């Protein structure tokens, strides 16, 4: 079945079909929009990373001596807002998903190409507004915007940044809407739901959350802005409002948002593990359904962020129970990925290294999540560094590793060139080691009781904090390396050919980089997903 199209030298593709700044800024090609997103979110990642670096440097010493406490508060707030709303949420969906999903399902483009471009402009508008707020002096509410601090007590640019986040929410909604409609209506003939790549399944699930959850945080942030501007009283206890209502509405989105961030990453891992094990995904249906289960159950657990916030104990009981249910599909996925390698034919390319890192670190992140679901222990560890470590294991150890895995995996498809393997392996190792060194000590710090968002801390916590900062510098090098060799590969990388990994999947059956209309003729799918059994076992010469 794999009659891969032979690469033609200087064949017309989406990159060279036309040139000029207008051809990019007015493009409706999903592949070009993905690259626009790639550039914008990379810029935001380094900005967020810069904030993180200052935070880690400040925490080297117990006294708050590098920056003032106001500056520190702004740093962790802007780190959180930048990383969550402007990097993690769009990372895999808007870059890799945007590029790969239409290719995977044999479509010429997403269902609404102009909406796709509009969503990038909305993203830029929201990011611009947030950055404007940062430049005016920043914001110090924490990324959670908790009331009444954000509505009545903070003297910083809350409204500007909140409106920026409100706007970027619509970018996310439109991306999600586009994915759902595309996956429903644009699949190639023969590509049934049972044959859909798992990456599409997990992006579909994440899109459900984007469409159903994001509007709730949008209205919540709008109410915060109204509260600040007009004093409507809804979230202000001095005016009779209940600050816990803000938390309910905020976490109704922001907990499922965690799954917006991790689900697409899980999709990447499913693709990578199957490709380098040369096997069909073990328990394909279970991995696919687990994505949907996570998306739906993810909406039922939000108040586990509020166990000590003053909610009813009986309500806490309900939310605790439901939280355990959402842990199960995640566990199912981990077991299935591991089992996929069983009796496979495993290759050690960089994406696979990242995937192993993901499985291990996500397991730890997920299991420490179970600590937080457990009411009695949560009372002690919530709002401490334990939580900080937990969500960095999921977000950085999970999502960022999956993003890097995906970027390496599809880089040949995106650019038509191979990245250099040795430095890539080195950076994967550095990221793994640096990450663990940074965040594992924070679990211990958390159980010892160091609260999060502390600018200065009691001296007995110093040793672990120094370890953490040391790890962060290793991690930073691990992130800088790919920047360099990816850029290098644009010019000097080996020609990738249409299918350097000898992978199955429609995206590998079109040249690299793909032509503007993706496929010369609409493919007809007659095989199951991950049909490595019938893929000829050819020796790969390119890319080693």
């Amino acid at each position, binding site marked *: 079945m794999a009659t891969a199209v032979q690469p033609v030298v200087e064949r017309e593709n989406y990159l060279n079909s036309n040139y000029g700044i207008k051809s990019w800024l007015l493009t409706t090609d999903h592949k070009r929009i993905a690259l626009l997103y790639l550039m914008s979110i990379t810029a935001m990642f380094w900005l967020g990373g810069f904030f993180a670096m200052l935070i880690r440097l400040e925490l080297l010493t117990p006294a708050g001596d590098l920056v003032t406490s106001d500056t520190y508060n702004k740093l962790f707030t802007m780190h959180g807002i930048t990383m969550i709303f402007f990097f993690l949420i769009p990372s895999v969906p808007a870059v890799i998903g945007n590029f790969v999903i239409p290719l995977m399902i044999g479509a010429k483009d997403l269902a609404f190409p102009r909406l796709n471009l509009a969503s990038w402009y909305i993203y830029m508008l929201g990011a611009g507004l947030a950055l404007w707020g940062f430049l005016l002096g920043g914001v110090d509410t924490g990324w959670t915007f908790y009331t009444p601090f954000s509505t009545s007590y903070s003297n910083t640019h809350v409204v500007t940044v909140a409106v920026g986040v409100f706007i970027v929410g619509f970018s996310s909604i439109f991306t999600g809407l586009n994915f759902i409609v595309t996956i429903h209506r644009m699949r190639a003939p023969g590509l049934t739901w049972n044959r859909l790549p798992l990456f599409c399944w997990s992006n579909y699930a994440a899109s459900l959350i984007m469409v159903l959850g994001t509007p709730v945080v949008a209205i919540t942030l709008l109410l915060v802005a109204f509260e600040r501007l007009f004093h409507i009283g809804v979230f202000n206890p001095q005016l009779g409002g209940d600050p816990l209502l803000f938390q309910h509405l905020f976490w109704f989105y922001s907990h499922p948002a965690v799954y917006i961030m991790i689900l697409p990453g899980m999709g990447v891992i499913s693709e990578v593990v199957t490709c380098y094990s040369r096997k069909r995904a073990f328990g394909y249906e279970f991995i696919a359904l687990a994505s949907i289960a996570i998306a739906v159950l993810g909406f039922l657990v*939000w108040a586990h962020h509020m166990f000590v916030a003053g909610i*009813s104990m009986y309500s806490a009981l*309900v939310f605790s129970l439901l939280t355990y249910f959402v842990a199960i599909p995640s566990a199912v996925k981990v077991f299935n990925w591991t089992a996929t390698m069983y009796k496979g034919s495993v290759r050690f390319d960089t994406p696979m290294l990242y995937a192993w890192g993901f499985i291990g670190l996500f397991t730890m992140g997920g299991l420490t999540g179970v600590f937080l679901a457990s009411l009695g222990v949560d009372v002690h560890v919530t709002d401490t560094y334990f939580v900080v470590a937990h969500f960095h294991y999921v977000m950085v150890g999970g999502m960022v590793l999956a993003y890097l895995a995906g970027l390496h995996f599809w880089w040949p498809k995106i650019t038509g060139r191979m990245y250099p393997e040795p430095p890539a392996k080195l950076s994967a190792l550095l990221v793994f080691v640096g990450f663990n060194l940074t965040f594992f000590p924070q679990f211990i710090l958390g159980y010892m009781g160091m609260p999060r968002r502390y600018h200065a801390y009691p001296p007995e916590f110093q040793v672990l904090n120094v370890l953490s900062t040391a790890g962060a510098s290793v991690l930073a090098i691990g992130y800088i390396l790919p920047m360099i060799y990816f850029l290098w590969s644009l010019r000097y990388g080996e020609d990738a050919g249409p299918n350097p990994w000898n992978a199955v999947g429609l995206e590998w059956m079109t040249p690299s980089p793909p032509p503007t209309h993706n496929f010369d003729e609409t493919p007809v799918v007659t095989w199951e997903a991950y049909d490595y059994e019938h893929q000829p076992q050819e020796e790969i010469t390119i890319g080693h």
Partner: protein
Amino acid sequence: MKIIPHDDEYTHVIPPSLYVGIWATLMVLTLITVLASFAELGIFNIVLALLIATIKGTLVVLFFMHLRYSPKLTMVAVIASVCFLLILFSLTMTDYLSRHWATFPGR
């Protein structure tokens, strides 16, 4: 002409009389809901008001918005969104309804 459908009946055209009938029903229901609000029904005031609003909403969605003649998928999507709305309401209320329950042990 590959892109043009050959089947003239590819959309459902609703007769104007049905539209007018729905319109009249909606107007009557509006009147009823206003009048009913003046009656003293206790808790049933709000129940009745929401019931009427839901009937009106259902009529609008089914006929004005053609949901009745739309693919099953659309129907599923609408029902799902109502479910998620109810999740938001009901799980939030688990907190508000039980917050004043006893916080004393053994009582």
